[in-house]
């Protein structure tokens, strides 16, 4: 039911409500999925186009592993674009804001949305959606239908970012 074509309309969350016709029930929430083959990627709720309040796995993530995933070039590769409080790594990018203190600026739900798919908050952003696998164009062989991170990895990164207090 939550097909890839519909993903476009899910960007801000609020457009979905008339489609579902259950606006009263969902209020400001929209139900979305990172993948048309929804059995593979978990469904999630987008609140006000700014937050995904619930854990994708139903469990809290592990901050220590989140830090590793964020650094790993084949996974988060967050350092490509962000400075982070990770002094042992050289060459931090400056395409996005410094992530030091980001856990004070956003709550867990807001951080989760910005990892799952930052285009909900800023459609023109350069930051990739880390939990989206459909509606992408000309994906290289071997990466089709795959999200950059698994639900567990997203939760681990969120758990790590929450610890980055001012």
């Amino acid at each position, binding site marked *: 039911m939550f097909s890839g074509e519909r993903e476009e309309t899910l960007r801000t969350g609020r457009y979905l409500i008339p489609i579902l016709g259950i606006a009263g029930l969902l209020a400001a929430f929209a139900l979305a999925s990172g993948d048309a083959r929804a059995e593979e990627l978990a469904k999630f709720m987008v609140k006000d186009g700014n937050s995904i309040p619930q854990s994708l796995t139903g469990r809290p993530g592990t901050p220590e592993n989140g830090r590793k995933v964020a650094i790993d070039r084949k996974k988060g590769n967050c*350092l*490509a*674009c962000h400075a982070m409080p990770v002094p042992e790594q*050289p*060459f*931090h*990018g*400056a*395409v996005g804001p410094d992530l030091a203190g980001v856990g004070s600026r956003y709550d867990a739900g807001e951080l989760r949305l910005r990892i799952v798919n930052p285009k909900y908050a800023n459609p023109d952003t*350069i930051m*990739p*959606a880390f939990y*989206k696998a459909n509606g*992408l*164009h*000309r*994906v*290289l*062989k071997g*990466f089709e239908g*795959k999200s*950059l991170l698994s639900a567990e990895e997203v939760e681990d990164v969120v758990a790590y970012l929450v610890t980055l207090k001012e």
Partner: protein
Amino acid sequence: MHVKILIGTAAATAVLAGFSSAALTGGEWGKYQVGDLRSGYTYAAPETRAIQDDDFENPAMLALDYGAELWSMKDGDANKSCADCHNDAEDSMKGVGARYPAFYEPWDKPINVELRINECRENNMKAKPWKYESREMLGMTSYVKYQSRDMPVNVDIGGPSTPFFQKGKAFYYERRGQLDLACKHCHEDNSGNMIRANLLSQGQSNGFPTYRLKWQGVGSLHRRFRGCNSQVRSTPFGYGSDEYVNLELYLAWRGRGLPVESPSVRN
């Protein structure tokens, strides 16, 4: 042949040496800056720029010299060389690097220098086309484009070229790959920013073919396109494909006025 260029850039080198690119942002980049347009030269590391400034150090000049040799070598069933039809490249090829890709009526579409070279080989020399990234093709493309060195890039996007230009432009702004990025996200929105250890440039095309230190060799613009596509995990298009020639036309137009720098040196 290389000496006249050397003298011309020596003064600029002396001024630029010792400054980091950040310190000079918005500053005076001489011929490598036209208004807001900046050649990839201005984003390259100082040591990289120094290699380009000295034609005797620029390893791409070896490719170019090979191209110069091939210019007068007979080949194919017609037993002709480029020189048999075009005489002295310094005269006949002057300006070609600045105005290509150009509309080619027999094919009803714009073509770039590489495709034009192979058209000459197949039709006029009755010779086998060169492979796109072969030593021969890179050498000849470098040699031909070098005859326009320092001339401002000036492609014609009017008339029959317009729809191809529009396609190239659409390509530039279209998100692609698992990372879902368009050219513009890196080269328009973020030029001047560090992406990990790389300083993002405006992604201008005026220096190609280029000797890239990371490649340890000379490569074409389409090789660069394939690299930029692959790094966002998108399926690249073929060398010399319509998609890339259209993109090449659009990029040349974006960088119009920048000097032809071929063959350049990049990080």
